[in-house]
C-alpha cells in the first residue's frame, strides 16, 4: 500500500514508539526508568512520571513562540474547543476554510460570526477588514485540504489592531514550518507529525486568561482536568524534538516529492495556490473524474477526497467551494498527502496508477 494521506494522519515515528514504551510499564515494573504512575501522584513513581511530562512539554514548547506555555489536551479538536469556549468568545472572525473543529465549535458557541473569505487561490488577503467589536480571529496556518499557507502573522496583527486575540489552528504546519509567531493561541496535534493519537496541545501566550472547559482533578494548572498519559506526552515530545532537528531535511524531501508528483500529474489541475502552500499537500482535479471509481480502481494507493473527517459524510468540501469551484469540480477533486517516510518511487508508482485509472475513465 502506498500511503498518500498525510493530512489525515501520519505513520508513527519509531522514535515516538520507543519514547512511549518505558511509560507503558506493567505489574512487573521494577522501579527502573519509566513506569506506569499517575503523573499527578506525589509519590516517587508519580514524580518521575511528572518529570517525563515536563520534559515532553519543553520539547513541544521548543517549536512554539517564546513567551507562552503548552497545555496538553487529547488532541487539536479539544485544544480548539478549549480556546474558543474557554475565552467565552462573543464575536469571532473565522476564515471560510477552517476545519470543522473550529467552524462547528463557533457555531455551537452562540458567538456572532464574521466569515473571512479566501480568494480563488485559497489564501486570505492579509489586509482583510476585521469587524469592530471582534474579540477573536481564528485562521489556520496550513489548510488541511488544499495545503495553502495563510498570512497568519499579518492576520494576527490585524486582529490585535482590532482589539481581538488571534487563534491559530497549526495542526498541519506544526513541526514542518515555523510556528505562527504572532498568534495568541496555537492548537496542535501529535499524530499529524508522526506522534501518537490521543494527544495534542494548546499553546497559550503568557498573560492571556482562559477558563477551563473540562473539569475534574485540576491538572494542567487547573486549566485542563484529566490524568495525563506520560506515554502519550513522551511520544509527542519525541516527535516534536525530531521535527525540530529534521525540519530542513524534511522540507527538502517534501519539495522533491512535490516536484516529482507535479511532473507526473500534468493533466490534472491544482486546487489552491501553487506558491503559498505546504508542498506535502497536492489537491488535484480533473474534469469529469468519478472519484469514487478512481478510489476503487486504485486500492493500493491510500488517498482521500477532502478531509478524513468529512469523508463518507457526502458533504461537498466547504474548502473547495470557498475557492469558487462548482459542485462538479469539487466532486472530481482528490487530495494526495506525503511526507517524511514517502519515497520518490512511491510517488511515481502512485501517479502511474492514478493516471491510468483516470485515462480509463476517458477524462
Amino acid at each position: 500500500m502506498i500511503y498518500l494521506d498525510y493530512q489525515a494522519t501520519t505513520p508513527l515515528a519509531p522514535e515516538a514508539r520507543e519514547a512511549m514504551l518505558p511509560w507503558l510499564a506493567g505489574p512487573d515494573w521494577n522501579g527502573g526508568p519509566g513506569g506506569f504512575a499517575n503523573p499527578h501522584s506525589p509519590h516517587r513513581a508519580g514524580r518521575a512520571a511528572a518529570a517525563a511530562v515536563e520534559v515532553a512539554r519543553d520539547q513541544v514548547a521548543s517549536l512554539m513562540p517564546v513567551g507562552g506555555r503548552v497545555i496538553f489536551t487529547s488532541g487539536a479538536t479539544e485544544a480548539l474547543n478549549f480556546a474558543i469556549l474557554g475565552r467565552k468568545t462573543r464575536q469571532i472572525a473565522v476564515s471560510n476554510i477552517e476545519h470543522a473543529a473550529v467552524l462547528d465549535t463557533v457555531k455551537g458557541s452562540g458567538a456572532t460570526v464574521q466569515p473571512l473569505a479566501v480568494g480563488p487561490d485559497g489564501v486570505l488577503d492579509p489586509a482583510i477588514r476585521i469587524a469592530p467589536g471582534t474579540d477573536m480571529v481564528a485562521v489556520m496556518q496550513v489548510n488541511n485540504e488544499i495545503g495553502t499557507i495563510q498570512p497568519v502573522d499579518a492576520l494576527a496583527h490585524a486582529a490585535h489592531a482590532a482589539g481581538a486575540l488571534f487563534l491559530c489552528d497549526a495542526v498541519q504546519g506544526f513541526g514542518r514550518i515555523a510556528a505562527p509567531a504572532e498568534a495568541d493561541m496555537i492548537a496542535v496535534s501529535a499524530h499529524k507529525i508522526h506522534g501518537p493519537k490521543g494527544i495534542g496541545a494548546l499553546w497559550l501566550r503568557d498573560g492571556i486568561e482562559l477558563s477551563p472547559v473540562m473539569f475534574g482533578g485540576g491538572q494542567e494548572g487547573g486549566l485542563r482536568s484529566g490524568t495525563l498519559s506520560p506515554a502519550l506526552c513522551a511520544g509527542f515530545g519525541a516527535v516534536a524534538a525530531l521535527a525540530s532537528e529534521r525540519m530542513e531535511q524534511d522540507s527538502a524531501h517534501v519539495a522533491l516529492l512535490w516536484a516529482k508528483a507535479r511532473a507526473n500529474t500534468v493533466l490534472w489541475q491544482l486546487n489552491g495556490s501553487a506558491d503559498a502552500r505546504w508542498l506535502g499537500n497536492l489537491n488535484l482535479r480533473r474534469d469529469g473524474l468519478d472519484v469514487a471509481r478512481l478510489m476503487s480502481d486504485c486500492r493500493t494507493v491510500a488517498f482521500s477526497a477532502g478531509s478524513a473527517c468529512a469523508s463518507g459524510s457526502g458533504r461537498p468540501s466547504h474548502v473547495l467551494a470557498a475557492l469558487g469551484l462548482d459542485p462538479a469540480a469539487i466532486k472530481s477533486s482528490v487530495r494526495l498527502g506525503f511526507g517524511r517516510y514517502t519515497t520518490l518511487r512511491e510517488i511515481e508508482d502512485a501517479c502511474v496508477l492514478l493516471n491510468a485509472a483516470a485515462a480509463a475513465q476517458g477524462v
Partner: protein
Amino acid sequence: MTANSPLFDPIYLDHAATTPLLPAAREAMGVGFDVWANPSSPHGAGRAARAALEDARARVKAALGWQGEVIFTSGASEALALVIGCSIKPLSAVSAVEHEAVLRLSGDAVRLSCDSGGLLNEAEVARPGLVAVQHANNETGVIQPISELAAAVRGAGGVLLADCAQTAGKLALPDADLIAISAHKFGGPIGIGALLVRDWGLLQPGGGQERGYRGGTENLPGALGMAAALEAGRDWMAGAQHLRGKLDAAIVAGGGEVVAATSPRVSGHRIATIAAYSMPGMTATAQLIRFDGMGIAVSAGSACSSGSLKTSHVLQAMGYAGAGEVIRVSIGRETTEREVDRFAAAWTTLAQGRAAA
C-alpha cells in the same frame, strides 16, 4: 530510583490513581500503533483502522456486558463533561461526594447529602432531570446502591448518570442510564475512556466522529488496550477482598481507624480495592512522606487533589472529624499478600513511633 537495588523494593498501593498497564493491553496497543491510519479515512488503510476500532468497541461492550452504545473519549473527565453538556435532561442533582469532574460542572444542581457511612438517601435521589451519582467513591471506596437509586430516579422521571471510573472492570456494571469509565483505572492505558449510553435518545443529536458526540481522531491503540484490559477479567477481586480484610484488621489492631467501615444502614459496602485509613495524631502529609521514603506509594485523598492541602470534600460530606489524618490505600490485580503485610507492618511501626513520641 535504582532498579535492582536491594534497598528498594517499591510497593504500589495507589491503584485508585492509576494502575500498571496489563501486558495484554500493552500488546494490543502495539497492534494499534501498527494500524496507524485515520479510522475516518475512506481508503483501505483507513477502513482497516475503522474495522479495528469497531471491533474494540464491540469487545468493550461484550466484556462489560453493556447492551447500549459506547462513545470513546480521552478519559472519564471528558466522558462526564460530554454527557453533562449533551444530555437531553439538564443536570438536576449530584451527590456531595462526586469527583470534581462532576462537581465543577454541577452549577445550581442540588447537592445530595450522604450519611456518615457515605451512602445517599434513596428518597432524596428520586428527582426528574439528570442525576449524577458515582458507583464507588474514589477516596473511601463506598459503593452506592446504584440499581436501587436508578429505580428511584426513573420513578421520578429522571435519568441516572453513574461515574464508574473506580468500578468498571472490577464490579459488574450497575443498572444506570449513562456511565463514565476510564481505562487506566483497570489496567488499560491512560488517555482513553468511554461514555456508555443506554439509548441515543438520552443525548442531543450531534454530527462528526463518534456519532457526532466527540470530535477528534480516534485513539485506536487506546481503544484496543482498553478492550484487552477489560477482557482480562475480574476474578482477582475475590483475592483483593481478602487482602483488604487483612489490611483493615491490621489498621484497627494498630490503633487506627477504617473510614466508613460500617454504615448506619448496610455493611460490606466498600469496593475491595480502595480503603481510607486514619492514623490519629499524624497528618496525612507526614504519613505520605514517611511511606514514600520507604518506597510505598499511597495517597492522601485523590491523586488530583494531592498536594493541594484542601480538606477532602468527601470526608467533609460524611461529617468525618479527623480528615487531615486519613490516607488512601488502594490495591490492584497484582497486589500480593507480602506487599500488604509489609505495608501493614510499616503502618504499625509508624503509628507506634508516633504514639511513643
